[in-house]
């Protein structure tokens, strides 16, 4: 474990390189650009931002938060596309994922999600029966999250022009209490809270593809987290401490490791976590062991990470545990000063190591 840290010239050299302005050097898009890791960050910061920059976009949060003239509450706005393969899997399908994913991106700003749009790109020949199944699960997911799908669009492309079905959803929500949540607000001494067991969704998709012929009882954790966030905010409001909830993120693609790295880099702090405090199902551990995956990088679709001030951490965790989607919530680490921009993990074995961002592609088309 690092107690005192003096950065060596080498460490500084590597860190300088790590923070270099991302540039897109590739001539073609590879699958790595969609993985949620470093290559994707390069694409977003080095290309999209270059052409589309504005003050809201350049915050690079999972949603844009803005004021509307004359309204006392702020609005949150987000969008996400879903290309998961296979489209049906244990625990959910592309429809549930499309609703929950956008609901969660809104919720992570502290917003109450209100309305969603849904855009469908469907391949010629797609069975209507499958579309019915997807729509039914979108209806059910929207009902559970308390949102309405109020506008939409449909395009059909010729066979081979898309793979079965892709769905885009956008959503708006309203932020009703005075929160200030951002990946750049982690403060030294804060606690890092994880809402439950990691790796369920990614492992489920990997196994559902049937390439490995494994049989397990693992199911995707896809779920709307807006009610869980509402409970957390309510707890903070009651303690007059809404300002002490600093960061909220859902660790989807790139997993817990990538999300924590984003927080460490945006806030210029060290996030220290403890391997043996991270909840994980036995089956997921076993499957990851066989597949050679590191569960820290495996996608989740119904979990959140919160960085909150030490003084309310226990209360927030207790409140989360009373919610069905936060039953296994726990504190997995804390925020330290040094070395900034780094996620460090104390291993269950008693050593320590760096947990860096995902590089390359672990699993394409995970959501």
């Amino acid at each position, binding site marked *: 474990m*690092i107690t005192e*840290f*003096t*950065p*060596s010239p*080498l*460490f500084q*050299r*590597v860190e*300088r*390189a*790590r923070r270099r302005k991302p540039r897109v*050097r*590739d001539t*073609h*898009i*590879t*699958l*790595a650009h969609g993985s949620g*890791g*470093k*290559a994707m960050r*390069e694409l977003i910061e080095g290309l999209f931002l270059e052409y589309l920059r504005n003050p809201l976009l350049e915050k690079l949060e999972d949603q844009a938060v803005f004021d509307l003239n004359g309204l006392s509450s702020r609005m949150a706005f987000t969008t996400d596309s879903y290309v998961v393969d296979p489209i049906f899997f244990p625990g959910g399908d592309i429809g549930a994922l499309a609703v929950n994913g956008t609901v969660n991106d809104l919720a992570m700003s502290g917003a109450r999600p209100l309305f969603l749009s849904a855009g469908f790109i469907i391949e010629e020949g797609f069975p209507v029966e499958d579309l019915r199944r997807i729509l039914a699960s979108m209806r059910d997911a929207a009902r559970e999250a308390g949102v309405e799908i109020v506008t939409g669009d449909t395009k059909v492309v010729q066979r081979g022009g898309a793979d079965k079905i892709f769905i885009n959803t956008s959503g708006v929500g309203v932020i009703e209490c005075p929160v200030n949540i951002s990946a750049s607000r982690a403060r030294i001494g804060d606690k890092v809270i994880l809402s439950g067991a990691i790796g369920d969704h990614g492992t489920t998709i990997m196994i559902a593809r049937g*390439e*490995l012929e494994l049989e397990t009882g693992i199911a995707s954790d896809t779920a709307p987290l807006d009610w869980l966030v509402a409970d957390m905010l309510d707890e903070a409001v009651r303690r007059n401490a809404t300002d002490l909830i600093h960061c909220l993120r859902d660790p989807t693609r790139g997993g817990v490791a990538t999300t924590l790295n984003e927080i460490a880099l945006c806030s210029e702090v060290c996030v220290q976590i403890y391997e043996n405090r991270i909840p994980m199902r*036995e089956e997921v*551990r*076993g499957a990851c*062991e066989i597949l050679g995956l590191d569960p820290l990088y495996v996608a989740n679709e119904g979990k959140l990470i919160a960085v909150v001030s030490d003084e309310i951490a226990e209360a927030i965790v207790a409140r989360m545990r009373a919610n069905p989607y936060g039953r296994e919530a726990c504190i997995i680490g804390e925020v330290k000063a040094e*070395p900034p921009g*780094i996620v*460090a993990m104390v*291993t*269950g*074995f*008693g*050593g*320590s*190591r*760096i947990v*860096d961002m995902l*590089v*390359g592609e672990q699993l394409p088309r995970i959501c």
Partner: protein
Amino acid sequence: MKFIDEYRQSDLARTLAGKIAAMTSQPLKIMEVCGGHTHTIFKYGIEDLLPPNIEMIHGPGCPVCVIPMGRTDDAIALARQPGVIFTTYGDAMRVPGSKMSLLDAKAGGADVRMVYSPLDALKIAKQNPNRHVVFFALGFETTSPSTAMTILQAAKDGVENFSVFCNHITIVPTLKAMLDSPDLKLDGFVGPGHVSTVIGTRTYEFVPREYGKPLVVSGFEPLDILQSVHMIVKQIVEGRAEVENQYGRVVARDGNRRALEVLFEVFEARDYFEWRGLGSIAHSGMKLKKKYSAFDAEFKFSVPGLRVADPKACQCGEILKGVKKPWECKVFGTACTPETPIGSCMVSSEGACAAYYNFGRLSKIAERAGA
């Protein structure tokens, strides 16, 4: 998890580390030959537990890392042949060739697919009778028996649209080359575990006999490695040099006879095989025997077969030999990172540079800063 957690207990680890520290304060350099061990050492932070006088040297046992650039270019040339489906283990996708990687070739239109075993590649061949499926065969005796089995299966099933681009390598000539290298001063070896399930431990007996160095065949869990280090240090302290087997739950002295038979049936040694950074090592590579040349991609297609020099800045060779540490390479972590690797040691998760960059950077740098 049963049968896993038993090998990852931190209290046992501390006890064992304490025992190692109490045995000697003499500086010792111990090489783990196998990339799987390198990965475990960094992933679990084992170096944090070892006393400062014990230095782990990370050896050449990462099969992806030792593939020379020219062979990667050959693989890409095969992948870009019209009608070819090129199948590979995921690790090899991002290895840089002289101009591009397989991943780039894929983005450029080549049909490159990731598989978990050569049998999956054979299955793809059967499903696509109008295409030709090439499997990028890599690795030591850990993976070569499954390649051999697949070739025998393809022959038995009469599959004509399947071949193997063979880059299999063998451990013993490599160990000899390391031991003969004048710039390497090692005190003992952590021997490879999975390779030894195939070839057995008897094969290594020349190491203590001819070179007077202890070798302990080790499992891949963190406690396995700590225990192996303990066994090596114990031998040194007691003035012994022997082959010992820590991985007895899997490895037998004579190996796996059936796997060896299959290997001898299908493969023979190449006169020379080029290793990245190490140069050509006699009899260290394997090729398909003539009677299986119908399944040899190098025989079926013409590959460029050019030798390509490593980039000047890259010091993979010194790192593979353990002469240099990853952080002593000038481009480590700056020009050469896991997302833009220059050298192959930065690509595979078993490569010393990648393992060090991904997991180990913190402690070692902090320690060096204090020194």
